[in-house]
C-alpha cells in the first residue's frame, strides 16, 4: 500500500482586513451612556478589541467586518441604536458565478487549511445551476474504513495521467511490450496556467513551490524556469502555438507537458516523445462549440494520451450564445468515449469553473479523471476577483506585494482543505479510490432525474427550465 498522502500545513493569516458578511452599524449620537453597554457582552469580544483596530488606520473597518451576525448586541441595546446589516463590500466580492460565499470560504480554507464547519443546517437554495444541480450519494452501511475517514486505513486520492492500453501485448521475449508512460499524482488536481491578467513572477514562483510541496503538477508557461530544478518534476510546460521551445535538457526532467491543439498534434507528440520518450503529453482543447467533438476526435487517435478540456472561468462553453456547462460537457465527452470503446485508454482533465472542492468530486463523477484549477489559488491569496487587473489599477489584494511564505502557505492550505473535503465526500460514498470515482454516476443524484422520478410522475411536465 502506498504511503499515506499528507499535506503539511500551518495557519497563514490574511494580509488585508477580513471582509465579513455582516457588520453592526452603531448610531453613537443617541447613546444613553447607560453603563450597561451590550457591547461588553459580545461573545466574540469584537467591541473589546475596538481600540486595537482604531490604532491601526489601515484596519479601521476590520471591526465592522468581523461581526459574526448573532444580533445579540442589537437586540439588547437599551436605546435600540445598533443595526446589523449585510456588508456591501462583501456583496461586491466575486461575480455571478464566483459568489461572495465562495470567496469567503476559500479565504477561510487558505488561512486555516481546515474544512469549513458550521451549524444550523444548510442555508442555500434547493438546487442551482451547474454543479449545484447534483448531489453525491452516501452509503448507510458500506464504507472503506472502519476507523473513520482520517483513521488508520485511508482513502487513496491518487490518479494516473497518461494512456492506458486496454490490453497488454507481449513481445518476442514474452515480456510486456511498449507500455506508455504514466504520471501518478497524489490528488486529482493540477494547477492550471494563470491567465495573462494574473501573471506575476512572484506568483509563478509560489505556484512552483506549492506544486513541489504538495507533490502535484503545475502547468507553466514554456518560458518559465524554476528556481529549484528539483521542482521540474512538478511542472508541466505549456507549449502554445507561439511558445518558445523548452530546452531539451530541461524538458527531460519533467514528467508531463501540455501542447495546444492543432491539426498537427500527432506530429508534435512524436517530436516531443523523440526528445523524452517517458514524458506524457496532454493536449489542451478549448471547450468552444467544436470543443467536445474535437476532444472525442483526439481520443480516437492512437497517439493521444491526455486531453485537457477547458471551459471559461465560470465553467461555461466558450463563445456560445447558450453555453453548456462544464459538468454536462464532461458527461457528454465521457459517455461518447465509452460508446466508442476508448474511454479507459485516455486521461481526461477538465478545467474552468471548478470553484469549490465539491466541484472537483462532481466533475470526476461526471467523467473527468482529474480537474485543473487556477482561480481558487488566486482567491486563496485574498484576490476579490474584481476583474480590474489592469496595469496601473490598484489591486485590492495587493498581489504584487505577496511574499513566498505567505503565498505558498495559503495555496498549500487550500489544497489540503480540498483534499480533506474530497475524502469526506468519498468516505460518505463508501469509495476507497479516487480512480474508481471517475464516471461513477451511480454515486450521484442529478436534479433532473430526481425531479422527474418524484415530481414529474405526480405533477406532469416541468414548465421551468432546469
Amino acid at each position, binding site marked *: 500500500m502506498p504511503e499515506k498522502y499528507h499535506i503539511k500545513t500551518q495557519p497563514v493569516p490574511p494580509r488585508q482586513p477580513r471582509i465579513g458578511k*455582516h457588520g453592526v452599524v452603531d448610531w453613537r449620537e443617541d447613546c444613553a451612556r447607560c453603563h450597561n453597554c451590550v457591547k461588553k457582552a459580545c*461573545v*466574540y469580544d469584537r467591541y473589546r478589541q475596538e481600540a486595537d483596530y482604531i490604532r491601526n488606520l489601515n484596519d479601521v473597518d476590520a471591526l465592522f467586518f468581523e461581526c459574526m*451576525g*448573532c*444580533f*445579540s448586541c*442589537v*437586540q*439588547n*441595546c437599551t*436605546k*435600540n441604536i445598533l*443595526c*446589523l*446589516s*449585510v456588508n456591501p463590500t462583501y456583496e461586491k466580492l466575486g461575480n455571478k458565478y464566483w459568489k461572495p460565499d465562495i470567496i469567503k470560504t476559500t479565504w477561510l480554507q487558505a488561512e486555516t487549511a481546515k*474544512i*469549513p*464547519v*458550521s*451549524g*444550523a*443546517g*444548510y*442555508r*442555500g*437554495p*434547493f*438546487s442551482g445551476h451547474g454543479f449545484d444541480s447534483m*448531489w453525491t*450519494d*452516501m*452509503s*448507510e*452501511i458500506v*464504507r472503506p474504513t472502519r476507523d*473513520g*475517514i482520517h483513521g488508520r486505513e485511508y482513502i487513496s486520492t491518487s490518479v494516473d495521467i497518461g494512456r492506458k492500453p486496454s490490453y497488454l501485448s507481449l513481445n518476442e521475449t514474452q515480456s510486456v511490450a511498449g507500455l506508455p508512460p504514466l504520471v501518478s499524482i497524489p490528488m486529482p488536481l493540477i494547477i492550471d496556467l494563470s491567465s495573462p491578467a494574473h501573471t506575476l513572477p512572484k506568483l509563478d514562483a509560489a505556484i512552483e513551490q506549492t506544486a513541489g510541496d504538495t507533490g502535484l503538477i503545475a502547468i507553466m508557461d514554456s518560458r518559465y524556469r524554476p528556481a529549484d530544478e528539483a521542482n521540474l518534476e512538478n511542472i508541466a510546460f505549456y507549449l502554445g502555438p507561439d511558445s518558445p521551445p523548452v530546452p531539451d535538457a530541461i524538458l527531460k526532467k519533467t514528467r508531463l507537458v501540455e501542447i495546444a491543439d492543432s491539426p498537427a498534434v500527432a506530429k508534435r507528440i512524436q517530436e516531443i516523445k523523440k526528445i523524452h520518450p517517458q514524458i506524457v503529453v496532454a493536449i489542451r482543447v478549448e471547450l468552444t462549440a467544436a470543443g467536445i467533438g474535437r476532444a472525442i476526435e483526439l481520443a480516437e487517435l492512437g497517439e493521444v494520451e491526455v486531453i485537457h478540456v477547458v471551459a471559461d472561468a465560470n465553467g461555461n462553453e466558450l463563445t456560445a450564445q447558450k453555453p453548456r456547462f462544464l459538468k454536462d460537457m464532461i458527461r457528454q465527452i465521457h459517455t461518447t468515449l465509452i460508446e466508442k470503446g476508448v474511454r479507459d485508454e485516455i486521461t481526461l482533465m477538465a478545467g474552468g469553473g471548478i470553484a*469549490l472542492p*465539491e466541484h472537483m*468530486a*462532481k466533475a470526476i463523477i461526471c467523467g473527468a479523471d482529474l480537474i485543473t484549477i487556477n482561480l481558487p489559488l488566486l482567491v486563496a491569496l485574498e484576490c476579490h476577483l474584481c476583474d480590474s487587473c489592469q496595469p496601473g489599477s490598484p489591486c485590492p489584494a495587493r498581489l504584487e506585494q505577496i511574499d513566498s511564505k505567505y503565498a505558498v502557505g495559503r495555496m498549500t492550505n487550500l489544497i489540503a482543505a480540498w483534499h480533506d473535503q474530497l475524502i469526506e*465526500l468519498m*468516505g*460518505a460514498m463508501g469509495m476507497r479510490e479516487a480512480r474508481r470515482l471517475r464516471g461513477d454516476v*451511480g454515486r450521484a*443524484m442529478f436534479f433532473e432525474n*430526481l425531479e422527474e*422520478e*418524484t*415530481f*414529474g410522475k*405526480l*405533477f*406532469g*411536465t*416541468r*414548465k*421551468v427550465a432546469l
Partner: protein
Amino acid sequence: MNTLPENTLKTRVPQEKVDRIVKTAPSRYRNEIAKYIVHRSLDCERCGKCLEVCTHGVHERKPGFEYFGEPNHHLCIGPSCANNGHYCVAQCPKQALQIRENPMYRALGDCRWSADLVLATWKMAETGEVPSAEYDYNYECGDSGGGFDKLRFKFPDRPPVKLDANQIDTSISLNKRKDGRPEVKIDVPWYGGGMSFGSVSNVTQLSKARAAVAWNTFTCTGEGGYMERMRPYDDHVITQVATGLFGVREETIQRVPIVEFKYAQGAKPGLGGHLLGDKNTPAVARMRETVLGISLFSPFPFHSVYSIEDHMKHIDWVKHVNRRALISTKVSTPTDVDMVAVGSYSAGTHIVHIDGGYGGTGAAPDIAKKNIAMPIEYAIGKVHQFLAAEGVRDKVTLIASGGIRSAHDIAKAIALGADGVVIGTAELVALGCVRCSLCASGRGCPRGIATTDPELCGKMDLDWGTQRLVNLYSAWRKTLVEILQRLGLRSVAELRGRTDLLMHLDYTNDVPAKK
C-alpha cells in the same frame, strides 16, 4: 408500575406533568427584530392621535410621561395598515410618522429560513397563535426555490365536508407492527429531534422534553447520553443508540418507550457525529465518559453492522433489554433509501426515520450539508411508494426530517407519504435562534441555545423555553387543523400519501389523479 413488562426499569422516578396551556412568552431580548420600523420625527407634537388609532400597540406613552417611548416596531404590520383605517402615518396631523421596511431585515434569515419564516416562528412561539395575515409574513414556505417551497395544496373553494376543528384528529400511532408492544400514540404528528447534551444546553434539552410532555409527544436525547434531569420525563423521551455509544447503558435503554438507532444524520450523511473539543466541557465529558476538551467523533457506520442481519441483531438486543420499547431506525437519504427502509422494517423496526440531506441542527462540514444525500422531499415519496409496493406500508411508521420548518412543511411531508415528522431547527428558532450558524465556534451558540458554556446557558430560562415550545406546537397544530379542515379531512392519517391534493409551481399539474 405493576403493568410494566419484565426487563423494564424498576427504578422509575415519578413522572412530571406539564400543562398544555398557551401563555404569552415574549422575546427574551429587549429589542425584538421587526419587519418594519416606525420613525417619529421631531415634528411630533405628542397629540396622541397615533396612540388612539393604532390597534396593535405600536405606540406607547407611559402614564405620567409627555413623550412617547421607543415604538414597539415588531408589533407594526407595516404599510398594509393603510387599508384598515388605523394607519397612524396617514392620520398623524403633523406627518411626523414614517414606516419603512427594516434595513436589518436583509441580514436575517437565508434561503431556507427566510426572515419572514423566522419572525413568524418567533411570533407563534410568543403567542401560541397563527400570525395574523395583517403581518404579511410569508411563512408557509421559504425562498429555496425547490422542494417544499414549490409545493402547494390544492385547496377547494369550499371544503368538501364541513368539519369542526374539534372533530379533527392530529394524532398518529407509532407502532403499526401489532407485535404486542405498546400502541404508542402521539397527539401531534411530530416529535423533537435528537440534540445531544453537549451540542445543546440542558435548558434546551429540558425545554424540549417538557414541551413533549405537554403535547404528549416525544423528544430525543441525541447521542450524548441521558441526563439525570431528563428522568422525570422518561415517558416522552427517545434515547438514541448511535455509533459512538456515548452514555448508552442498559439502564438508559430501559427508561424509555422508544429507542432509536442512529445510522446517519442529514447534516452529515455518512460522516458520523463530531462534537468539537471546545464543547466537551467537564459536564459533557462526565456524561459521555470521555476525556475533557477533546473532539469527540462518532464513527460511521456502526462498527458491528455490515448487513441487515447485523442490524436485526442490534434490534433484538434492545428489544430484549427493554420489553416495552419500540424501535426507531434513523437513516439518511442515499439513492437506495427505499431499500434501506424495507430492510429496516424486515429487521424488526417500528419506525423508519429518514433524515434528508438538508437537515441538521449541529455543526457539520459545509460540504456535507450542501452536497451529500438527497433532499427529504424526494426521499419521502420514494420510500412511501416502495414500502407500499412491498406490502408493508401499513406495518411500519415512516417519519421524515431534514428541513421541516413549519406546519405547512409537515402537512406537505405527510401528503407526500410520511406518517409524521421530526423537527429540530424550528424548535431552536422558537427559542431565539437567528441561524447565525455559529453553534460550533468557540464557546458555542451566542444565543445560549446550542452551548454548554455556563455563562451563555444562563441566557435562557427553563419555564420560558418550555412555554415557547408549547406555544409553537399549539400554533402549528392550529395551522394543521385548518389545512385539514379546508381539505375536508378528518384526520392527519387521512392526509398520508395524498399527493393528489398537492401541486408544484414549476409543473403543468395536469396528471389525472389516480382513483
